[in-house]
């Protein structure tokens, strides 16, 4: 298929943006409730600039590399058995999942604050919460060991980007520079936040959330209106770059031939 004149759905944009964050030779795990996105990002990286990238589908222990292999379908879950067809070369024992390196992890969250701390526990009083979250999963673990990790939020609102979390389920930069080191957390902390509206990273000096780019069709004002967390806004905020046709072609023909990302619920904002 030709990808020309086909608008890019935000999950596709997410996969593209995140894929560029992954370097050749790294080892990492896609995760979170919408793991199609990081899984696609990692496979896209393998098939473009990072042929030695190894993916561990954490919860199922498959270690995969799809370089030079026939396209494999993208599935909704990293725990799906059929991920074995995407170049699985080994399967880690369950306990070995926690004994192997991660250059990166992906994490979702119900709430994120301006230091990249995450809440997956509850909104409101945990004794009788307005919204009970799914729980800590492996977020705190991943955040403590991974060289860095990427946060992707399915909504960008004042309820999801807040200054004070109802509960800290996983620590990002805590309350600022030096706190991770003081606690002996060996991982580097969150590197980037992706939302349906924008890409954000963290200021090296202050560890504060910082607006990096705004997706096409959206504005800085719109982002700020929907952000309850303090955020550094540089003078010039570029528009999030779209994948060129070659990369989009690889994404749509080799990484996600069945169009799972294009058809994700709420994937369209055009």
């Amino acid at each position, binding site marked *: 298929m030709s990808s020309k004149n086909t608008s890019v759905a935000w999950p596709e944009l997410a996969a593209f943006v995140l894929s560029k964050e992954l370097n050749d030779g790294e080892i990492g795990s896609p995760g979170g*409730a*919408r*793991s*199609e996105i990081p899984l696609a990002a990692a496979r896209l990286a393998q098939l473009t600039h990072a042929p030695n990238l190894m993916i561990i589908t954490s*919860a*199922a*222990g*498959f270690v995969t590399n799809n370089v030079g292999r026939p396209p*494999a*379908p993208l599935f*909704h*879950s990293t*725990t*799906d*058995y*059929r991920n*074995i*067809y995407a170049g699985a070369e080994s*399967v880690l*024992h*369950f*306990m070995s999942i*926690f004994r192997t390196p991660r250059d990166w992890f992906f994490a979702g969250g119900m709430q994120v604050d301006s230091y990249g701390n995450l809440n997956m*526990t*509850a909104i409101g009083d*945990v*004794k*009788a*919460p*307005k*919204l*009970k979250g*799914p*729980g*800590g*999963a*492996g*977020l*705190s*673990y991943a*955040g*403590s*060991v991974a060289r860095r990790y990427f946060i992707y939020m399915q909504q960008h609102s004042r309820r999801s980007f807040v200054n004070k979390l109802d*509960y*800290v*389920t*996983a*620590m990002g930069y*805590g309350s600022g520079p030096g*706190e*991770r080191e003081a*606690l*002996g*957390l*060996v991982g580097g902390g969150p590197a980037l936040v992706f939302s349906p509206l924008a890409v954000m990273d963290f200021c090296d000096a202050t560890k504060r959330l910082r607006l990096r780019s705004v997706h096409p069709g959206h504005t800085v004002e719109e982002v700020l209106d929907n952000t309850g967390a303090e955020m550094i806004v540089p003078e010039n905020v570029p528009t999030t770059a779209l994948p060129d046709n070659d990369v989009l072609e690889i994404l749509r023909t080799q990484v996600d031939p069945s169009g799972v990302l294009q058809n994700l619920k709420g994937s369209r904002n055009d």
Partner: protein
Amino acid sequence: METRSVKLSSVDVALEGLEDGQTLIIGGSLFHNKPMHLVREIARRQVKDLTVVSVPQASLDVDLLISAGCVAEVRVPYMGFEYLGLAPGFRKAASEGTIRVWECDETHLLAALEATSRKLPSGVAKAGVGTDLHKLNPDLKLVKDHITGEPIMAVGALKPDLAIIHAAAGDKYGNLRYAGYSFGDLIIAEATRQGGGKIIATVDEVMPNVSFTSDPFRTDISCILVDHVIEAPYGAYPCSSHGNYQFDEAAILEYVNAAKSEQSMRDYIENHIMSVPDHEAYLEKHVKLMSVVAARAKIYV
């Protein structure tokens, strides 16, 4: 020379000793290798006040036990339906305060199970340091590392009374082989055995012992870790038997939709659990041949 005894059991024999208030640990993860047949049998027996443990992820299995009123406490690192949404029964019960939730990271639960499996009093994890988890969970203790003195999270050994797991195949002595991934089932069985509990495995099929002796490296769980083997074809349905058949998304969504009202959930439980006397009746009533044919075919994409 005497002969070996076999571990093939009926559900009734296997579940003898099941009591209110016990700690039940469930194998598999998310929609995979969940021993749904045994989950329904436990729910049908209307056991109360269970502490239900599952690692790393639970969905329909634990949520159904909550909806059926069997659960007092949930110890599950991730309790949800992943791309199909949040866990409705869990969410409702937690909001209404009718269950206790043991807030944790998966490495806390694993440290507690590993400690038991090694007959150690406690385990540690770095996860949780810098979070609120130990403020919400009194079993998590922020301590100083024995050697470096740095902050670390300690948790006491966890000893389940009963473990239920599902494998694609087993033999009459209790050796188990999975078609796909076995997730946390091994450490679950090890911790339950070493803690003095009982392990029950359902299997899609019983294979001859020679299938295991001919390739012992392929045995995922040894018979020394299994007390009862129950032959239950499609025993994980509507969840997957990982690598053997896929999960039935429509059947799982049927539960999610039933959770929209108390009446519809009562109807669902009556229809899927209370009104079906055994596994055969369940398959007769709720599983179409073509749907399992499709679930099997899907394995190959």
